């Protein structure tokens, strides 16, 4: 049994390292801290939203080693050595991710609170390769709730980027 060494100064803190949006962090974390609270409160990455805090709404969706998960249900100490990607990590070289651009183009939001989770979830869905029809997109996005009801435009945005990728001209629009 490996007991993770407690710090003398803060007896309940555990030393954990993880890569967040490409940047390495050495952290001291209390065992009951969720990944969501770590991102928002310790790393000041407030793009990931706390909606229900119970895994029901998807506003906190992040990528853990490339797989989308609800950050509110993950203990931060358990992410030792993992790579985390949040909404803040999707833009490359100052340019938005194609799905972010598609959300803007399709007006795929109203209040915007669910949007970071929708986009991170959608980016994962595109990578999973299972966005082959509107039914597929709706089913595989069912973990992201939008109480404004922007669903039709969200599906449009994902469908467009999936089609671009399937057609091999991802940079074509605009």
């Amino acid at each position, binding site marked *: 049994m490996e007991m*993770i060494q407690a710090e003398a100064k803060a007896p309940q803190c555990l030393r954990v390292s993880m890569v967040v949006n490409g940047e390495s962090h050495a952290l001291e974390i*209390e*065992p*009951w801290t969720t990944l969501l609270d770590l991102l928002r409160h310790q790393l000041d990455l407030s793009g990931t939203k706390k909606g229900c805090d119970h895994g029901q709404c998807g506003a906190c969706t992040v990528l*853990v080693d490339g797989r989308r*998960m609800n950050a509110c249900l*993950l203990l931060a100490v358990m992410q030792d050595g993992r790579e985390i990607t949040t909404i803040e990590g999707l833009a490359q070289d100052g340019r938005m991710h194609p799905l972010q651009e598609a959300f803007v183009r399709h007006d795929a939001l109203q209040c915007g609170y669910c949007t970071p989770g929708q986009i991170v979830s959608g980016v994962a*869905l595109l990578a999973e390769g299972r966005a082959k029809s509107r039914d597929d997109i709706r089913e595989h996005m069912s*973990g992201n709730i939008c109480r404004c009801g922007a669903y039709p435009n969200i599906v449009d945005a994902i469908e467009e980027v999936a089609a671009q990728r399937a057609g091999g001209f991802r940079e074509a629009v605009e």
Partner: protein
Amino acid sequence: MNRFDYVRADSVPAAVAALAADPAARLIAGGTNLVDLIKYDVERPSRVVDVTRIEELKRIEETSGGGLRIGALVPNTELAYDVRVSERFPLLASAILAGATVQLRNAASTGGNINQRTRCYYFYDPHTPCNKREPGSGCPAIPGVNRIHAILGQSEHCIATHPSDMAVALAALEAIVHVAGPEGERAIAFEDYHRLPGDQPHRDNTLMPGEMVVAIELPAEASAYGRHHTYLKLRDRLSYAFALISVAAGLAIEGGVVRRARIALGGVAHKPWRRREAEALLEGQAPERAAFTATADILLEGAQGYEHNAFKIELARKAIPRALAQAAAGTPQSQTDKRIQ
């Protein structure tokens, strides 16, 4: 959240030792249910034992008998899309994809899925009595809001249902649960793993103190339903909702006759519900509507509804023949196109 200690177990014996040393310790893998229950103050572990670094529990392996042994840490997503599962045990893949969301299935483990707790509203609310949460405190669901509750196998102490879709398929496939404990390893037939509430509703399953699930085995015989199977799930919305009724059905049909039938119901009881007599009635018969209806009648014998869930009995009486017809026709229910054929 309540506070707890955290330890990381690097082997099965270390995890078992940590569990056995402290009855208030809880294993954590995906955490999708446990962390939620801790937030609601339903689970109050003194310590969580992280088993996610135990490599030997992450594999799916062929067994010498022609089945598959699925490590307890295999994520639900990985299991559903594993080609050995989707080709030879498609009923299991379908049931997994009928449950939860991609985010939850990516995090949730095989062992954790069968060990998830009921979603009974009263169990989840520590401000109300609940015999499952606090033995002897009472069951407000019986006179209360009981839309999602049991119609079969319940007791005067508890009418909670088991929420897993995957477990319903595993029951129909007659899987074997491999557990490790202070006394070593043992195997439990799936129908003996979960239990009915009786007068001990706080016990969901037959694990002994200090025991943990290490693998679930699919026997070779369970691949007989590759062609004729379905997982039909009825719920209040088309995705991401627990089953009101679900039916896992597997048929082996040869020469126009059902040679073997396995049927399990979800959403109706404290465990996936099977009646061997119902399956035996189908065997040796042509897969036709009259036989399906008679099968449903046997499965639902003794069903009792409450104020808000009595509709489930009639819903199940319709869903079972529909599922058997889907299986017989070789047209399993799609888990993305939700229209029911």
